[in-house]
């Protein structure tokens, strides 16, 4: 898969190099040597340190086994969605339909499993099929009908919301106990859900860094026209990215169904997985315009949000105040990157 005929461009070089703005060139060039992935992990370490100090002043202990497990468990669902969202954003698109898709797939899983162990395999297969299909629809609408991804996936989101709201008023179906182990079990200090997230992240990292499709995703996101002229079937790449993004959302739906023990029509929107996953991806240093960034940054971005959440929980901060701080942190973090990269070109 990786051998000959490595197409077009390697990750990182695919994006058009933006002009160096007058005045700030030297400093930025220096700062540019630290990759954005390192920055997010530095920020993560900083937040953990500040959190640890604050919690210690409050008379608590931040880095207990319990909190670490909690952070892993809380971040797994968002993490899986965000890894998928990374693919959509890298290709120069985005997916606003993931939240409703998560609700839908949690219901599909729980309805098909109906509490029976024998239903697990068909349930998982159905979820993967449904989510792949919706990703395919997103991709086709964007590439064949030339609808902007924002509107296309918003439209799909409304359709899925309509169907889910029409059919369900509340939780439905049930998940057998053996499947609930996915949400709650731990192997030593590591929750199974965190392992699932890690598996998805590694798979997508491998896809991006070691396969042809991965290189093409960077190429199309970097400059679609150049990619097309170099012989990449750009439409197919965009569709593949959307299918994979939706499948990740489906996996997150499975995880949430196993946590709840049932499907829930609002589980995706209550978690705010659509905007939150985009925020995590951008926090991780992936350019919203596509072509630059990667999974490692996204994992850091998700962990940063989770650590923040955990610190707030331990300090018993008001839920609304949490939102305020989260908003400020997201904007501030992205502002830090933006200062480091040269101004994006409008076109």
């Amino acid at each position, binding site marked *: 898969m990786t051998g000959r005929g490595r197409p077009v461009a390697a990750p990182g070089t695919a994006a058009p190099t933006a002009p160096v703005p007058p005045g700030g060139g030297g400093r930025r060039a220096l700062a540019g040597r630290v990759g954005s992935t390192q920055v997010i992990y530095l920020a993560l370490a900083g937040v953990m340190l500040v959190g640890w100090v604050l919690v210690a002043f409050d008379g608590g202990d931040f880095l207990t086994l319990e909190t670490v497990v909690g952070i892993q468990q809380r971040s797994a669902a968002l993490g899986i969605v965000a890894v998928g969202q990374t693919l959509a954003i890298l290709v*120069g*698109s*985005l997916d606003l339909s993931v939240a409703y898709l998560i609700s839908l797939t949690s219901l599909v899983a729980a309805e098909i499993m109906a509490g029976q162990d024998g239903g697990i395999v068909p349930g998982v297969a159905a979820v993967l099929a449904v989510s792949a299909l919706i990703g395919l629809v997103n991709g086709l*609408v964007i590439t064949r*009908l*030339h*609808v*902007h*991804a*924002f*509107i*296309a996936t*918003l*439209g*799909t*989101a*409304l*359709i899925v*919301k*309509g*169907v*889910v*709201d*029409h059919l369900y008023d509340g939780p439905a179906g049930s998940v057998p106990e053996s499947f609930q182990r996915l949400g709650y079990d731990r192997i030593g200090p590591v929750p199974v859900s965190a392992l699932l997230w890690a598996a998805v992240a590694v798979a997508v990292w491998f896809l991006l860094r070691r396969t042809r499709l991965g290189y093409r995703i960077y190429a199309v996101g970097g400059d*679609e026209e150049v990619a097309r002229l170099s012989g990449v079937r750009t439409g197919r790449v965009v569709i593949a990215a959307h299918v994979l993004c939706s499948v990740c959302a489906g996996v997150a739906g499975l995880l949430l169904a196993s946590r709840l023990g049932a499907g829930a029509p609002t589980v995706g929107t209550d978690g705010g997985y659509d*905007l939150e996953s*985009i*925020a995590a991806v*951008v926090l991780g240093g992936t350019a*919203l*315009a*596509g072509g630059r960034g990667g999974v490692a940054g996204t994992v850091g971005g998700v962990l940063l949000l989770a650590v923040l959440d955990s610190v707030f929980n331990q300090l018993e901060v*008001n839920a*609304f*105040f*949490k*939102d*305020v*701080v*989260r*908003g*400020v942190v*997201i*904007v501030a973090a*992205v*502002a830090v990157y*933006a*200062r480091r990269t040269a*101004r*994006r*070109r*409008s*076109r």
Partner: protein
Amino acid sequence: MRALRSMGPILAVLAVLLVLIAVANPFFLEPAGFLAFLKRAAPLVILAAGQYFVIVSGEFDLSVGSLVTVQVVVAARLIDGQEQATWPVLALLIVIGLLVGLANGVITTGLRVPSFITTLGMMLVLSGAVFLWTGGAPRGALSETFRMFGRKDLGPVPWSVLILLAAGTAAILLMRSDFGKRLIATGDNERAAGLSGVRVDRTRIAAFVLSGLAAAVAGILLGGFAGVSAQVGQGLEFQAITAVVLGGVALGGGRGSVVAAMAGAFTLEALFTLLNLYGISGALEFAVQGVIIIAAVAASAVRLPFRRALRV
């Protein structure tokens, strides 16, 4: 002439929807029925005009929905039923709208944060802050004078329709002025605009300020029309962006007219009205809405010379 041609599709869709509404409900053809439709549409049309300024300059404003909620919740708590508090609070609401827009603009241009993230953060901050302040649920009540703008009439014409006319005219005049040309140039090609002497950052900040102002006005109208609730602004940002795109305005900037954006908002509102008339209400309304939005945008993308504008 060129503007008219590019507006063709949306005006045709709007005309078809209006005819369908009139067939289902003849009352719609009477002045009172039509004015009621305009009154209901006014907040979304004004929001769409504000969002147009931002989108045509190449950015997004996702904070308008939560800004509308903030306006209504703040108004209810500060007025708390006292008539004499109405006018100062109205002035305060306008100032809040302008300040939020200014903050969005300055953060986006000065700190170079993509506006998607800036306004997403603003959305979190605004909704968090207002409920932190009120303790979780809206409190207080609006005064009669405040509610006048959203629901009362001046003679035969509702106040909100007059405000809509004023806002629409102002938006058209703005786009015909030098500012409008600079705005389109900025959205079309920021570098070229900058090199030809446009202060692109200031132009974009002005666009965000206009969007904040539009959200303030829409919030005042919606508060009067629909009353105080924590959900009043929910989803409005997506509706406004959809309306603008329905009007054929390119996401990514530089193309489309403000009249078409407002026509897009009327079309969306006509669609809601029609779905209600034909009894498709509740949940399925969303599904139908989704299909029609994709179809309408796809149709306009086929007709117009296509330009991929994915760069957010």
